[in-house]
């Protein structure tokens, strides 16, 4: 590849979906719409594979928008972490869109909203400027508001209103934090902030960090800010819920990883985040055990699993952060696989309630296999990716001298397995000969089940990538010098 193309590459995962979204809004016929939507996501996927390959050895690719040098202009930065996140977002966008098309849940508005959502998510991953991160969040959230409320009943619209309100409050806190940071340091560029925050007055910096923790914590659904999530994710059709459940909370998690390492680094394990991680894991899984609907159980598990990621961040060691990033990537694949399996059941049987389902193993063998693979991976059983994700975190926790949180994480794994067994027993065992789900609804989830198996068998490949990503966060010197061109 020539240098000019490489230099422009980090902007493409944002610009391609935006461009496709605008084309889709002109209202092409159904076949063209589907082809265009899938093409846009496929191009984003190809670009993100190239980005991962380019940043694999620790290279960082910055773009100074409009030619204004950092810290004065807006900077986009593709480092190893951003590239990995963009890759997973493109994979999920593609698989989720295939499911949505297969389930015939796509009209032209859904296609355009889908592309806008992908653009906003990738923008949030790529940006190197904290105010620009706010704008990216709003682009992403606006698309999510739309997809959530599109074609809803009145009751669902009321629940969606709650989701919008809580996100607006988080955005307000985010803006408060931006104002405090700017007044204390005079900059908004993250690399520049990393240099200036240690020299700034402590009080506004601490207040800004606390506000950002709340703002990102609401989006990531960490304890005690998670209550909005199960209501919101029960609303849309399964394909859209899979995109939401896989990516949206993870953008919050990613922002926590980015900001609370580079801008506000923690020396040693952070007790506040550790408590929050333990609470997120425990209350999420306990909530899941109380539910009687596939989608609701899985939504509570999203919360529980975010706890593991925050545990990795809270340990603040390179292994902990590498394990946390590994966990994020693994979790997105597995969780979307499970939501799409649940979606195939919902679309075929007309319900996701455990007491109305049964006997699916008799007629839906492949679906049962896909569910078992994803469920075991979620609980952390070898040889799937979940086992290595948990192993890394437990190892990092013991190295950092935090046996308490490690004990909680192991207990929660057992409870997760219990909850998965509950779904399996209720849905796949029992009497009845339910309808067979059509193959095109099973294939998207089957692809993701294969990914978790392959990642589990070749865990060292992904681990070396996440280690590179973690190294940029724990020792940000290279990030700072590359962005500021020193």
């Amino acid at each position, binding site marked *: 590849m020539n240098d000019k193309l490489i230099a422009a590459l980090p902007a493409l995962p944002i610009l391609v979906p935006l461009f496709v979204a605008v084309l889709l809004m002109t209202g092409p016929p159904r076949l063209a719409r589907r082809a265009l939507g899938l093409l846009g996501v496929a191009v984003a996927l190809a670009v993100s594979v190239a980005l991962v390959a380019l940043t694999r050895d620790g290279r960082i690719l910055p773009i100074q928008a409009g030619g204004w040098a950092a810290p004065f202009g807006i900077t986009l930065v593709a480092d190893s972490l951003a590239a990995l996140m963009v890759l997973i977002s493109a994979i999920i966008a593609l698989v989720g869109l295939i499911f949505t098309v297969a389930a015939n849940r796509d009209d032209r508005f859904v296609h355009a909203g889908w592309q806008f959502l992908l653009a906003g998510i990738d923008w949030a991953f790529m940006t190197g400027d904290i*105010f620009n991160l*706010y*704008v990216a969040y*709003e682009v992403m959230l*606006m698309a999510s*508001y*739309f997809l959530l*409320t599109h074609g809803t*009943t*009145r009751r669902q*619209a*009321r629940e*969606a*209103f709650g989701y*919008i*309100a809580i996100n*607006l*409050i988080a*955005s*307000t806190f985010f*803006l*408060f934090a*931006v*104002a*405090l940071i*700017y*007044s204390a340091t005079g900059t908004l560029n993250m690399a520049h902030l990393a240099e200036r925050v240690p020299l700034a007055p402590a009080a506004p910096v601490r207040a800004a960090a606390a506000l950002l923790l709340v703002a990102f914590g609401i989006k990531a659904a960490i304890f005690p800010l998670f209550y909005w999530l199960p209501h919101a994710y029960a609303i849309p059709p399964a394909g859209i819920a899979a995109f939401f459940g896989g990516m949206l909370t993870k953008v919050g998690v990613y922002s926590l990883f980015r900001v609370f390492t580079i801008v506000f680094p923690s020396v040693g394990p952070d007790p506040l985040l550790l408590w929050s991680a333990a609470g997120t894991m425990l209350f999420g899984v306990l909530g899941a055990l109380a539910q009687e609907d596939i989608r609701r159980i899985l939504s509570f598990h999203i919360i529980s699993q975010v706890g593991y990621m925050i545990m990795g961040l809270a340990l603040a060691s390179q292994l902990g952060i590498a394990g946390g990033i590994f966990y994020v990537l693994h979790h997105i694949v597995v969780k979307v696989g499970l939501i799409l399996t649940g979606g195939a059941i919902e679309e075929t049987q007309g319900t996701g309630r455990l007491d109305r389902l049964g006997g699916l193993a008799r007629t839906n063998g492949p679906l049962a296999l896909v569910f078992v693979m994803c469920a075991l991976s979620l609980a952390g059983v070898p040889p799937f990716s979940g086992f290595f994700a948990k192993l890394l975190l437990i190892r990092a926790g013991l190295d950092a001298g935090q046996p308490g949180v490690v004990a909680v994480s192991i207990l929660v794994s057992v409870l997760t397995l219990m909850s998965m067994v509950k779904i399996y027993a209720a849905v796949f065992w029992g009497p009845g000969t339910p309808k067979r789900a059509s193959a095109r609804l099973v294939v998207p989830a089957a692809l993701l089940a294969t990914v978790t198996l392959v990642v589990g068998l070749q865990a060292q490949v992904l681990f070396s990538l996440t280690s590179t990503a973690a190294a940029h966060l724990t020792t940000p010197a290279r990030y700072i010098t590359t962005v500021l061109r020193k």
Partner: protein
Amino acid sequence: MAAAVALLIGVLFATGLYLLLGRSLLRQIIGLALLSHSANVVILLAAGLKGSVPVMGAAPPPHTDPLPQALILTAIVISFGVTAFLLALGYRMHLFGAAGGEDDER
């Protein structure tokens, strides 16, 4: 001057929060709009209220920092868009049934 602006932020935030806690959908939407306005005023205050017009040569230094005003402009546009969306959603809920009244969802 700064104290008065700080008070204004407090009043905007408190009023927004109060309206948000009410039952009526329309009040909640106005409350959310007021919350985002309070954030805009915080940015204005954070930039400092003193200084001259930030045009080189047109006014004597020290100039006001123009960047926070660009930030506020962006934030206003976003909050305008979201408020419009919420009003449209509220209108659709109204079409569904008697949404938006004081006794909504009772």
